[in-house]
């Protein structure tokens, strides 16, 4: 069949790649027209009158010989003339007469290294582009534009789809862990319905949020499913994050979803299946014999208890199944492309009753409506069903006694309430309750984006990005009257609904022009958003067994609740971006932002950002250097704000009128919040210097050093009770984070069949409280982690545990004594009150913040096999293992199970014993389990986060069956963890939540997962 010849076309500086509409932004600075023509079709007329032009044609393919569609072909130094390849990879370009001599063609395509070819006498060109595995050539979206990494003045990390999705989870943070330097992800639970928390470059705030801002497809917020993510860009320094103004203080994570690629429609199936088991680390609970032997030393326990040996942990945990199935189709014509996908995700938690089911649909369409107008319509709908663990399952798994039976003679779960001589404290068996009880939620989220880009002239582009976000949630908890939880009220039902809608519009104007070697781009943005949310809840009681709808409830349990609230933001920004000869780059921006969250006196704030970089390797003295193949220096400085995490009306003095303020059935109003009309944005001033080096085009090293200084910190300051309030929101003092981070990627071996690549990334962050308002030296004094000048904000301040008195087995703490002259001496005391005083509590240099964090990955490919292993590690943090209060408390609870002493621990038995654990006494030994440094443990760990072996069917087998790609893999998540921590899992939340971090409570440990996958496309 004869292929139609592509028609010669004039190049209009439109979006170079259909996959990356934003990439047009770089196109603008690289490609520009010398003419300032107003109307698009005038160009055609001009084309026809040129007589002595030359027409060149050719084909562009990728490294596998597949035609590439939409490749930009331009003439170097004269970007007004250009063409793009069609569905078959063919192009045709008319070169005006005046440009023929010395012309060089440039072939560029996003994600591929550009290729230049001198025109010479040649009229046909067959070009092969190779994908830009080199990070420097990647195009990333920063702020409101896209750039190649090598031209950036900022510190960014990018993670592509493949790297992102080695681990199996439906939550993005869990996928990001250890993948980029300075991005610390910590998950507080193995619950598949909960996502980890992300902390970028340390926490710089006390009470405001520490989560980075998520920007999906060019606009703040939005929804996405990890399967549809094309790439993630993490913006860390202020030159990049600053454009997001007020909400970028904690860094920005830019999520780009997949767009279709012109060409043959490709349909892909991706399937992952496997199972998960809870990790238990170094932690062991006692069995009957162990507990009996221990308790017999201090408590009269009858030997008959040994007749039962229930392993409650095993009853509470199970092997959970994981399924993740995606079908997607992408393709399109030169002018219109599409990507559509459907995903089903189901993960059973390792804890019984707990699972997550997700359904996700996405349709991304892009169309070149006219030569100057491009429209993009993105639609995403997700429906989630979460089932939560209920009926105190986790609590009982840790604490129930092995002496109490789980099942009766018929194999039915026993009700602890009625079983004679149940010995456990709470007379509770979750196994009985979960037969009838549940706790669940479902949510529907829909996001629709309509984005328009219009080229007013060759130099000016107008864009309007608009989003509607809609969310609806339902929750229900049911405690059946037959169970302990529902018995007292003859059945309880809690129903909740929530609704939110968010409207956002972002309107942009961009001007771009080159003057010889000078390139300038100017951007202006006006943006507004408003969020409306409402919720209601109702609780009823008196329900017949198994009847879980509100209409059968015979009475109300608590008053119904409901509220609706609205928040608004408005932002103006301007940015100028200048470069000289692709060697020197300068960027500067200014942001003015308003938020309804703040006090009327201070609701608007201004922020600025400056960045500069210098590509040394483009200088004569480094050109053609075979060792140092790329070198760039970067520096940036600027300010951003933080408005996250504070309550919607934080600045107002409030009386609550909720039902909590009602009395005797009458409505009331009670003072609830002290006002602060001067409350304003938290401001973060940040500087970053860094360099990007590439050796032999094989080793890439990116190093950054930064200082982030937050001032006017938002702080929910606790007040003395005599003020009549619990807290007030204030702007208080200053905190500094400084650190160094690096990423080293090395292609160790690159051969025809065998490749080996290693990446190591590490980040070192140091935090210090510089100053507090009103000359205070400490906020939240008496807390486990007070905010104290000169200290890390995560540092512990506790009574110092001084071990066990060898004489009598009593616990001991340090008591600090000050004499009249102010001399300080330390004594030992066995009276807790003497240690729990402002003088005796001490900073011992132990903090919940890690000294460093990082990740190490190795990927080896041999022919069609790929083997990869990925470790993440956290070092030098201390975890407060709070749950030992329950199961390691020297006899306080004879009716809770106890942990087997960890390695190196020992108990006092007789005078003279030098041990770690006091003499056990029924009811506890002198408050030995009260808050002190006793329960602080080294939280360092290294974890094999993922290991994977993959195999792709060779091409010669594929062709026959119509498949274009078939691959299979086996994969394991979290198979091994190295740690000294005594609990089941050393991972804790490393960012502050409610003024505390590094806390390990009764933990739902993360899962080990064993998975197999099969992916195929045709």
């Amino acid at each position: 069949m004869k292929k139609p010849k592509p028609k010669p076309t004039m190049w209009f500086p439109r979006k170079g790649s259909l996959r990356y509409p934003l990439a047009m932004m770089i196109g603008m600075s690289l490609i520009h027209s010398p003419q300032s023509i107003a109307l698009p079709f005038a160009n055609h007329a001009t084309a026809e009158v040129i007589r002595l032009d030359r027409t060149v044609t050719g084909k562009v393919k990728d490294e596998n010989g597949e035609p590439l569609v939409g490749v930009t072909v331009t003439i170097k130094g004269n970007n007004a003339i250009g063409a793009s390849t069609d569905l078959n990879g063919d192009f045709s370009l008319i070169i005006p007469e005046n440009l023929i001599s010395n012309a060089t063609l440039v072939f560029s395509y996003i994600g591929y290294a550009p290729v230049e070819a001198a025109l010479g006498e040649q009229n046909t060109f067959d070009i092969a582009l190779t994908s830009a595995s080199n990070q420097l050539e990647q195009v990333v979206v920063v702020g409101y534009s896209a750039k190649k990494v090598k031209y950036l003045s900022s510190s960014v990390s990018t993670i592509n789809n493949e790297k992102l999705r080695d681990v199996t989870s439906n939550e993005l943070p869990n996928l990001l862990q250890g993948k980029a330097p300075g991005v610390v992800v910590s998950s507080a639970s193995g619950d598949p319905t909960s996502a980890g928390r992300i902390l970028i470059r340390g926490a710089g705030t006390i009470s405001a949020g520490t989560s980075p801002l998520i920007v999906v497809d060019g606009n703040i917020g939005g929804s996405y499913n990890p399967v549809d993510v094309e790439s993630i860009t993490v913006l860390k320094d202020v030159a990049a994050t600053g454009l997001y103004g007020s909400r970028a203080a904690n860094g920005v994570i830019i999520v780009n979803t997949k767009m279709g690629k012109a060409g043959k429609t490709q349909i892909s199936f991706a399937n992952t299946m496997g199972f998960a088991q809870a990790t238990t680390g170094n932690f062991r609970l006692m069995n009957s014999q162990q507990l009996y032997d221990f308790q017999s030393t201090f408590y009269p326990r009858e030997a008959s208890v040994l007749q039962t040996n229930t392993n409650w942990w095993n009853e509470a945990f199970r092997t959970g199944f994981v399924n993740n199935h995606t079908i997607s189709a992408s393709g399109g014509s030169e002018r219109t492309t599409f990507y559509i996908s459907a995903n089903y995700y189901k993960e059973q938690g390792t804890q019984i009753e707990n699972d997550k089911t997700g359904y996700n649909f996405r349709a991304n369409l892009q169309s070149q409506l006219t030569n100057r107008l491009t429209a993009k319509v993105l639609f995403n709908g997700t429906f989630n069903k979460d089932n939560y663990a209920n009926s105190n399952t986790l609590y009982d798994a840790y604490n129930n006694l092995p002496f109490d039976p789980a099942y009766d003679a018929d194999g039915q779960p026993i009700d602890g309430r009625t079983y004679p001589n149940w010995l456990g404290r709470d007379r509770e068996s979750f196994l009985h309750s979960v037969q009838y009880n549940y706790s669940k939620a479902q949510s529907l989220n829909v996001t629709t984006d309509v984005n328009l880009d219009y080229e007013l002239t060759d130099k000016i582009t107008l864009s309007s990005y608009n989003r509607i976000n809609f969310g609806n949630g339902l929750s229900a908890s049911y405690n059946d009257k037959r169970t302990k939880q529902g018995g007292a009220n003859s059945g309880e039902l809690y129903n909740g609904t929530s609704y939110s809608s968010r409207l956002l519009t972002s309107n942009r104007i961009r001007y771009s022009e080159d003057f010889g070697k000078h390139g300038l781009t100017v951007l202006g943005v006006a943006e507004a958003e408003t969020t409306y949310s409402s919720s209601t809840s109702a609780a009823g009681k008196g329900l017949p067994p198994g009847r879980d709808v509100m209409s059968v409830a015979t009475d109300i349990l608590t008053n119904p609740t409901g509220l609706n609230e609205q928040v608004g933001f408005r932002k103006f920004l301007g940015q100028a971006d200048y470069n000289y000869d692709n060697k020197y780059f300068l960027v500067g921006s200014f942001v003015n932002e308003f938020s309804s969250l703040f006090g009327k006196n201070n609701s608007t704030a201004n922020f600025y950002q400056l960045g500069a970089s210098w590509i040394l390797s483009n200088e004569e003295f480094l050109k053609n250097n075979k060792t140092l193949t790329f070198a760039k220096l970067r520096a940036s400085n600027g300010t951003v704000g933080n408005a996250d995490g504070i309550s919607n009306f934080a600045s107002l003095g409030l009386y609550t009128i909720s039902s909590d303020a009602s009395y005797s059935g009458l409505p009331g109003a009670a003072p609830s919040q002290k006002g602060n009309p001067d409350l304003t944005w938290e401001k973060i001033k940040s500087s970053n210097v860094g360099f990007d080096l590439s050796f032999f085009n094989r080793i890439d090293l990116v190093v950054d050093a930064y200082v982030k200084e937050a001032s006017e910190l938002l702080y929910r300051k606790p007040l003395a009770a005599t003020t009549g309030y619990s807290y007030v929101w204030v702007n208080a003092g200053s905190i500094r984070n400084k650190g160094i981070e690096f990423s080293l990627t090395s292609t160790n071996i690159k051969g025809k069949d065998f490749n080996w690549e290693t990446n190591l990334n590490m980040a070192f962050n140091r935090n210090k409280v510089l100053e507090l308002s009103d000359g205070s030296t400490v906020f939240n004094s008496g807390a486990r982690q007070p905010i104290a000048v000169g200290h890390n904000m995560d540092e512990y301040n506790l009574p110092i545990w001084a071990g066990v008195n060898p004489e009598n087995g009593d616990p001991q703490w340090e008591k600090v004594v000050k004499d009249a002259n102010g001399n300080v001496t330390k004594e030992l005391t066995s009276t807790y009150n003497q240690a729990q005083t402002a003088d005796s509590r001490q900073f011992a240099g132990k903090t919940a913040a890690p000294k460093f964090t990082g990740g190490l990955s190795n990927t080896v490919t041999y022919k069609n096999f790929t083997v990869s292993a990925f470790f993440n590690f956290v070092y030098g943090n201390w975890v407060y293992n709070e749950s030992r209060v329950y199961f390691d408390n020297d006899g306080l609870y004879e009716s809770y199970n106890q942990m087997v002493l960890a390695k190196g621990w020992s108990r006092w038995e007789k005078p003279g014993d030098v041990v770690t654990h006091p003499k056990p006494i029924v009811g506890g030994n002198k408050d030995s389990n009260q808050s002190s440094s006793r329960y602080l443990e080294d939280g360092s760990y290294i974890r094999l986060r993922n290991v994977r072996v993959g195999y792709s069917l060779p091409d010669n087998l594929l062709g026959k069956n119509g498949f274009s790609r078939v691959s299979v893999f086996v994969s394991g998540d979290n198979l091994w963890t190295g740690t000294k921590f005594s609990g089941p899992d050393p991972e804790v939340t490393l960012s502050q939540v409610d003024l505390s971090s590094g806390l390990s409570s009764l933990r739902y440990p993360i899962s080990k997962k064993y998975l197999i996958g099969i992916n195929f496309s045709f």
Partner: protein
Amino acid sequence: MGALLFVTASCEKYYEPTTSIDEESALTNAADVETATIGTYAVLLNAAYVRSVHFLMEYPSDEVAQGQSSGDDLTRAYRYTHINTSGHATNFWGQAYKVIAAANKIIAYVPDESSVILRQLKGENLYLRAMMHFNLVRVFGRPYTQEGGNNPGVPLLMDGMSDDAINNITRSPVKEVYDSVIQDLIKAADLMSEDKSNSFASKEVAQALLARVYLYKGENENAIKYADLVIKSGRYKLVQGGEFSSYFKTAPASNQETIFAIRHTKVQDRGFSAIGSMYFSADASGTAEGQGVSGWAEIYASKKYVDFLAKNPADLRSNFISPYTINGVLQHNIKLSPSTPMYYINKYSMQEGVINLSSPVYLRLAEMHLIRAEANAKTGKTAAALEDVNLLRQRAGLSGNALYTVGNLGAKKVLDVVMEERWLELAFEGHRSYDLFRNNLPMERNYPGTHSLNNTPTTNITQKVLPTDARTIFFIPQAEIDRNPKLTQNP
């Protein structure tokens, strides 16, 4: 584009909260004063107030026995093993001052000379401020009868104080706190003229508390005077027979003996977090069941109290105890040795048929008779004292030799029988430890309970706490000292 910019700029808008109101608009007219006063009462409903203060006041007594150890701070109140970070002491302190601060705003807003309605509301807030200061000084300050009230009391938080004064507030001596409480109550009684229901303060409520304060202070004549005023007001009566037996199952509004109770409506059932949950566990009909069915049920009536009550099997007050039996056999909590008999207390359960619902009674007429009796006994008016005691014993179904005459007292002094009657009548209502210590009497426990865990061996079940013991009062919450170092700690 210009239009878009304009639209964008017009988004600069503030929004109002929907579940709160701006404080500037909270107190602007008479109707607001009533709404805000309701809000002041509502603070009393917080578990951090009503539950914590109950634990602090009742658990040190010899009326109750904790049958198993617990990590909850309530154990320390029971065992006298206090720590300065006590959760319940911190809760109570915080909520009590919240009530005072809310009351102060209204007291400052309403002039003394205003409408009948506003004077009433101002009086109610003065009453609440006095009640809080009085509870605080009892929990954190030594009895008035020690050192003539010159021991450190608690900070007196008054209306009109500057922020600076509040931030640097110090503990006033016990005496000054009492003086302030008395002054507030006298003024409150003067301002109030509406006979509001017993869920709210009124003239007689203020007078009833005055009677108690004077008794604690040792001003017996004034105690008699105010007790008399309340008794003779005719607003209250001692409920009789079956009505008495179901006293605490009745909603306050229907109970003619209650002077002031912290009203909990049916939607304010606290479930396992209710006061009653610590005492009682039952099926939906109120029949005692094992621990964990409807409550924790780990604090029981002490064997000492039950044995004393059992001396008169006809005593209707035994209805306030529901022994947990299976097939007629009394059950024991076997966690301790010797084990603790499970005599459930039901004074905080089954209001309006809801297991864990109760409206804790703060003042009731029986106490007025006992105050008058005690003051009469102390001032040598034996016959008058016995008359009040017998009135309560008759109401409890006792007759004949169970009633006292000057002749049948035997070795007992009249004050002894008054104190015994107080113990029988007001048990579990938070009076006992104050009654003993203010009268310079020790707390003696000789019955099974976790106080034995203080001893070696733990089978020794005796405990004797002298009225001078440092731990008869609680530590000032360390967190408050950390925020205001001007507060001194109790030894």
